[in-house]
């Protein structure tokens, strides 16, 4: 009786959305990676064949995830987290270098990317820590500890030269904000982001002058209360410092290709001839993917009929650039539908997270939604040229076993936690 009730309480909406994404994703991988006639959909030499196997194995993974007692995840959160950290650290010794990043373990013919699994582990750890009765997220001490929980894996991943995956850990900001960190962080975040963009776009001098004017305005015409001169001055100095910091970071810490990506996004290069040259080099990927998407038109060219997809004009199309296949072959209708699918899945998770009675489940759910959101925003934004190029996969869609399993675990642990909602205290 009890078990029956539990199984009925799985959130089928999320599961259906998940299935739609995975299946639609596989068809696009098939389209993007096939050569000529497809004779065997499980051809292990081809990405689509491997992905088909990964998807089958995913179902096994889901069964296991759902079979495990919900409480297990909360109790073992720390242990899972530490195992994950160990696996990340182990890469420095046993890691396999692919495309400049040391993010893979080679096991037999397969490769595993621990950073994909570190996401759910970190989410569990964050949920566990915040839901601890003794934790008060409003205190600096706990904020620092929370930050540490996400910083350790983030830094390890960054050291393996996988800057894209590192950015994802920024997603936890939404979790902390939801759980009650001070409003000022949001303000600081927004101001810092704005200042950073302004500095890179218009240079330090202009930005500092803009900041000065803004600070003076707030100082003299601020509504609530008149801040002290010293206060305003130090805010101004901090902002100015930030400008210099951003500039230094851009000039000296970022690698040339990262500088180029950022520079392109901010339209820093004005020389049309150089731009034309860039289209052949660093802009090539983006340029081809935008062309593929816009050539799709309203209805698309049809499944397996995209000329640019079939011609393999977009490099990495079955992984990070899979969305361009959707754009070309399924057109505006298909791509918009995909965006709606993702938005639905994320909002569904958010909705469910808010329903949770246990703080652990809520924080975890929120983490899942945030991580999906960041992946969704960066990946599709990048492929359409709205966001500087950051190479991270589109959840459930991009080719890759590790990422598929990582995201599946992320989602289904939450579905399991959610199914247990009524029994939580």
């Amino acid at each position: 009786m009890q078990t029956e009730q539990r199984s009925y309480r799985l959130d089928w909406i999320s599961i259906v959305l998940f299935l739609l994404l995975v299946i639609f994703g596989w068809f696009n991988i098939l389209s993007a990676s096939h050569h000529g006639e497809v004779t065997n959909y499980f051809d292990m030499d081809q990405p689509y064949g491997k992905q088909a196997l990964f998807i089958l194995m995913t179902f096994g993974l889901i069964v296991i995830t759902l079979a495990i007692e919900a409480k297990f995840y909360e109790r073992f959160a720390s242990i899972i987290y530490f195992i994950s950290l160990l696996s990340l650290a182990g890469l420095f010794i046993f890691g396999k270098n692919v495309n400049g990043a040391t993010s893979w373990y080679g096991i037999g013919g397969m490769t595993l990317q621990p950073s994909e699994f570190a996401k759910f582990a970190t989410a569990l750890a964050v949920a566990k820590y915040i839901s601890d009765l003794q934790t008060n997220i409003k205190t600096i001490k706990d904020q620092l500890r929370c930050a540490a929980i996400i910083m350790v894996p983030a830094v390890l991943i960054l050291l393996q030269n996988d800057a894209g995956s590192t950015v994802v850990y920024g997603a936890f900001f939404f979790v902390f904000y939801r759980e009650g960190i001070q409003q000022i962080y949001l303000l600081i975040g927004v101001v810092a982001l704005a200042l950073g963009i302004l500095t890179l776009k218009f240079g330090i001098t202009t930005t500092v002058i803009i900041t000065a004017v803004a600070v003076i305005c707030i100082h003299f015409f601020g509504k609530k209360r008149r801040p002290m001169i010293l206060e305003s001055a130090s805010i101004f100095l901090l902002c100015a410092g930030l400008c210099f910091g951003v500039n230094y970071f851009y000039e000296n810490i970022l690698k040339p290709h990262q500088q180029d990506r950022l520079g392109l996004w901010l339209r820093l290069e004005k020389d049309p001839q150089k731009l034309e040259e860039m289209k052949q080099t660093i802009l090539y990927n983006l340029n081809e993917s935008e062309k593929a998407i816009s050539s799709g038109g309203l209805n698309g060219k049809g499944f397996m009929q995209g000329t640019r997809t079939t011609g393999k004009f977009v490099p990495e199309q079955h992984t990070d650039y899979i969305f361009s296949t959707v754009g070309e072959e399924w057109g505006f209708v298909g791509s918009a539908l995909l965006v709606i699918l993702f938005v639905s899945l994320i909002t569904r998770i958010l909705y469910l997270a808010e329903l949770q009675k246990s703080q652990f489940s809520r924080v975890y759910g929120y983490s899942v939604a945030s991580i999906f959101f960041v992946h969704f925003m960066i990946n599709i934004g990048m492929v359409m040229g709205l966001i500087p190029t950051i190479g991270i996969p589109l959840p459930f869609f991009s080719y890759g076993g590790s990422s598929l399993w990582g995201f599946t675990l992320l989602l289904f642990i939450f579905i399991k936690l959610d199914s247990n909602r009524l029994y939580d205290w």
Partner: protein
Amino acid sequence: MRKLLLFSLVISVGLVFIARLFYLQVYKPDEYSLYDDNAIRKVYDYPKRGYIYDRNGVLLVANQPSYDVMVIPREVRPLDTLEFCSLLRITKQDFINIYTKAYNYSPRLPSVFIPQLSRNDFAMLQEKIRKFEGFYIQKRSLRDYQRSIGANVLGDIGEVNNYIIQNNPYYKMGDLIGKQGVEKTYEDVLRGVKGIKFIQKDRFNRDIGPYKEGIYDTLPQSGRDITITIDATLQEYGELLMRHKRGGIVAIEPATGEILAMISAPTYNPNLLVGRQRSANFNKLYHDTIAKPLYDRGLQAMYPPGSPFKILNALIGLQEQVVTTEERFGCNLGYSYGGRKMGCHSHASPLNMNGGIYNSCNAYFANVYRRIIDKNGNPGDGMDVWSKHVKSFGLGDFLNNDLSVGQPGKVPDRKLYDRTYGENRWGSTYNLSNAIGQGEILTTPIQLANMAAAIGNRGHYYTPHIIKQIEGGEIDQKFTHPKHTTIDKQYFEPIVQGMFDVYNHGTASTLKVPGIEICGKTGTAENFTKINGVRTQLTDHSIFVAFAPKDNPTIAIAVFVENGYWGSRFAGRIASLMIEKYIKGEITRKDMETWILTHGLESEYAKPYSGEPFTINKGATIDIIPMEDKPKSVK
């Protein structure tokens, strides 16, 4: 509040994405066209180009296959180079050079390894090509001229240039298009419509199969055959007669305006402009600025017509009723006016119109011309009337026909002289040379032939044209409707009789052909050239205009031989021979034929370029060509 941050972000990012997608795909999509998609290779399937037949159904132009050896360097596997080279008859060094060039162009794309193999080489290679991986044979189609005649009529095809590509979307780089002759004017009919295949490429530009299983592909539509009005036998004969001379012959069927023969000498074998040697040969022809073989003298050479033009003055005189056929004018070895004298040769005097024509008396026509111009006391009015009559014979303007080149010639009018001398400050004596076809008048041989046709038809002509029949099509209406001259029919008969008497007892009496009543008129045109900037007179051009038979003529002809001295010397003989050949099919005046075949003018043509002083007209030279050298008529 805090719950809403992420939620609203998710929704807004979703909306931004959909907006961006809308912008990229619906609002401003790349104007998508299969033709512009660089992921699709467009492979054209060229249709068979239409054949060209002569008026009797003799095939003149067909197509021949040609074989290019192609190479894709990446696919080449170690091979027996020695055998391969000997098959292609190249050295090993050639092989290395060509291969390197192809590899540098692209290792993945096909390059032409050896273009246009001969049939024999192809046959040898075809057996063994499978042994040489990475090489294959591509078939092309080239023009095949069945007979070596009519290069100027048939023209040639060559690759389109950038100008054409930009202005006509049908043509793509490397396509062939008619460049001269009927190949050019009937390009649209002959070429057909090429088919297209869309082939999916990958990013290395390799073909990976038909796009969408070929649903957008089209089949080529064959070019249509055409029949032209040329009589191949006559054309061939004319070219034979014109050997060792320069000039042009145009023969027209007066009843239809169909061009029976159109010869320009010197000419060339049209097969020179086909195949591997095309561009080398074309350059050679193009840069021959002395003999100008690409210059169609029948259509483009503008010269004062000389005496044949007198016939028109006689007709205009009758039409304007300023002279009767019986009125006689005296000639004292010329016509004196205002202290000057226009010379004439020695003949009986005075002469009526008939005598004036067959003796080609300059004084007679000077009188007639002055009467026309001074008819109502105003030379300007007289000149315009005269000019209108002359132009009604198709002179002074493009004939507007279906030949790829042409010249308008020139017929002066009041405006010209007003501009030169000032209004009302000139009279008929100012341009008296017009009376005898010199002066300001310029005509081309085809215009003279057309004039002869109009006279033979007693007052109308059909625009001379080259097209007789288009497979599954109609020829232009303008070629089937007669154009009428401004001279009334009744005035032609005495003139025709005059021209007939040119053969009976006039300047062409030695050229008679038994059994054919030919009407003709000799002509001699003074001409000049510049040698080191000095205007120098050269030996006169020999001109002859004729039609036959006298009533219901079947052929009208104009012959023009550069520096041939006087009309009956070269042009008259050639005209008579051509007429006999066309009407009888065989030559009875063997003496005349032999004379023409054994006499040439090449040393006369060499004179102005020799740098030595030289003599003209009475001092003209003539080459004797031994009969053995008589070129065999080429089949």
